[in-house]
């Protein structure tokens, strides 16, 4: 079952496209990382999914419905964590949860309460006076209290220190293992994603560059290191994503369709970070477009 699906989805801001020709599917039960540099269109995509924006082109389906027509039904089934963990800063933690109960008929009172108690977050403190990590946890608890089938998180790790980041991902993993919900979380950096995610969507310059199961992605990508003289076709290499030169050494990130048996090349396995950086690096070097203005910085 597909939880989130887009088809040539686009969003234009004036004359700039914040997202363009975006086509991908997110199968149910996945924990997907939506990766791309600032301004790639990650926030735009997530906002389109929760109806905070409406598309300028193409279509989007969330849980089988269109946010343009049945946003209300969709919203009651998804959790959304906005960038910077937007919350009412003058509400106490307890009041924030009361708000969740007041605004959501499917609210689970016990779950967020236990979660925050377990993290020793004081319930009577104002949200504005909490640390960034604690505020992120409150925002997550508010989203989880809805018992969502799909959880969308917009840059949940930005602005968190490494410890808070680890704790946040831990909380997220606990929740996922308990509920089997589908998760799409956006991030502009790559560290720590392998631990939680099993699906990858790379978004760059408002287009989807790569999308798929992380295990599959890692199986089908290899780093080839060899001498610069080797220029002929290599068997089983479908595409060279990115190439770099260091001295006489040549290093290629390649998508492969099978084992590479070529004495001229040293074949290495890749990490998720290698793949992401390879795809993002290749687009910026090949792209004719000037650097896109960063929407997230502008905000």
């Amino acid at each position, binding site marked *: 079952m597909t939880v989130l699906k887009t088809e040539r989805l686009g969003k234009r801001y004036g004359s700039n496209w914040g997202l363009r020709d975006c086509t991908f599917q997110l199968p149910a039960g996945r924990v997907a990382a939506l990766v791309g540099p600032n301004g790639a269109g990650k926030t735009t995509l997530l*906002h389109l999914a929760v109806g*905070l924006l409406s598309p300028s082109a193409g279509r989007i389906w969330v849980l089988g419905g269109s946010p343009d027509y049945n946003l209300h039904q969709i919203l009651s089934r*998804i959790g959304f964590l906005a960038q910077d963990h937007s919350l*009412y800063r003058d509400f106490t933690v307890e009041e924030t949860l*009361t708000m969740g109960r*007041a*605004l959501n008929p499917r609210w689970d009172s016990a779950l967020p309460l236990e979660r925050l108690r377990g993290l020793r977050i004081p319930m009577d403190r104002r949200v504005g006076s909490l640390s960034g990590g604690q505020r992120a946890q409150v925002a997550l608890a508010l989203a989880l209290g809805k018992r969502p089938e799909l959880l969308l998180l917009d840059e949940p790790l930005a602005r968190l220190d490494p410890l808070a980041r680890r704790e946040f991902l831990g909380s997220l993993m606990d929740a996922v293992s308990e509920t089997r919900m589908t998760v799409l979380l956006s991030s502009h950096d790559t560290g720590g994603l392998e631990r939680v995610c099993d699906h990858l969507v790379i978004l760059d310059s408002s287009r989807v560059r790569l999308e798929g199961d992380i295990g599959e992605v890692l199986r089908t990508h290899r780093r080839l290191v060899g001498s610069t003289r080797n220029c002929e076709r290599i068997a089983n290499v479908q595409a060279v994503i990115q190439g770099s030169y260091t001295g006489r050494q040549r290093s290629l990130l390649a998508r492969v369709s099978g084992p590479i048996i070529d004495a001229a090349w040293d074949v290495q396995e890749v990490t998720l970070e290698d793949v992401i950086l390879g795809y993002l690096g290749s687009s910026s070097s090949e792209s004719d477009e000037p650097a896109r203005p960063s929407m997230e910085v502008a905000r």
Partner: protein
Amino acid sequence: MIWLVWRQHRIEAALMAGLLALLGACLLAADQAIRSRAAQFGLGDCLAHYQTATCGVKVLEFNQSMIGLTLSGSVMGLKALPALAGVFLGAPLVAREVEQGTHRVAWTQSVTRSRWLASHLIAVMGIVLVASAVAQAAVNQVLFPVVDAQDLSRGLIGRGRFQPLMFDAIGILPVAYTLFAVALGTSCGALLRRTVGAMVLVLVLFVGVRVSVAFLARPNYMPAVTTTVAVEMPNEQFTGANVPPGSWLIDSSAAQGNGNLGRVLCVMSPSPGCLDHYQVTYQPADRFWPFQLIESGIFLALSLLLLHATWLLVRRQTA
């Protein structure tokens, strides 16, 4: 939803209650002052069984003392209240949410955006309606006796309930202005998405609309009555006699072809048939309530339009 609305507006509600209490205290003091002054001039008896000869002078004296008093200042103060409601309750309603990013939380829960907006508007408009109605009832209690007295003094035509300073501070109009100001503020906030900018814009627009309606539309709600008043002495000034007390004098000009110039010439060299009457245009005193209703209707209709615009803006509001 009710919980959220109450949680977000409880401070406003408390401030409003405080403001009402303060206003009540001021009105009580003003009422005392006016009553003691009326007693001092012996107006009570006089107004009970009205007799022109003796009463007119007393009313005139009373009026002059009232006008010199802080009354006009206080009435101007009352007129600022609707604008304050627009600036501090209307403008931030949507703008502050968008500015602080909290709309991303509020609008992604299981409540539709329309319901979110409707709940907030009903709460704020409800609080404002009750508060302004209570306040206005008290203001009317204090000011209507004053305008009644002013209307009775024929020598001061145009000083009573219809004078621009007074007309929109009494009756039901201030309540309509207040609701309008809040609706205007909310739509400005939804349009600009900046609280401070919306506050400035609502103030400018509110004053603009109020002034234009008062000066351009109000004299024309109903066709004015035109009458002629005969002039007996060559240089007689128009005093307002022959016009019902409390009427709104819109225009009085010496009628003799050339208007004022003709009048001046006639005064300089009186000749038979030169200046024989004044052309007087006025709105009769008994049109006070119809005019109040018409103007309230205009502002309430504008409020509905603005609320509809706000709804459209919020529905289309993007991240």
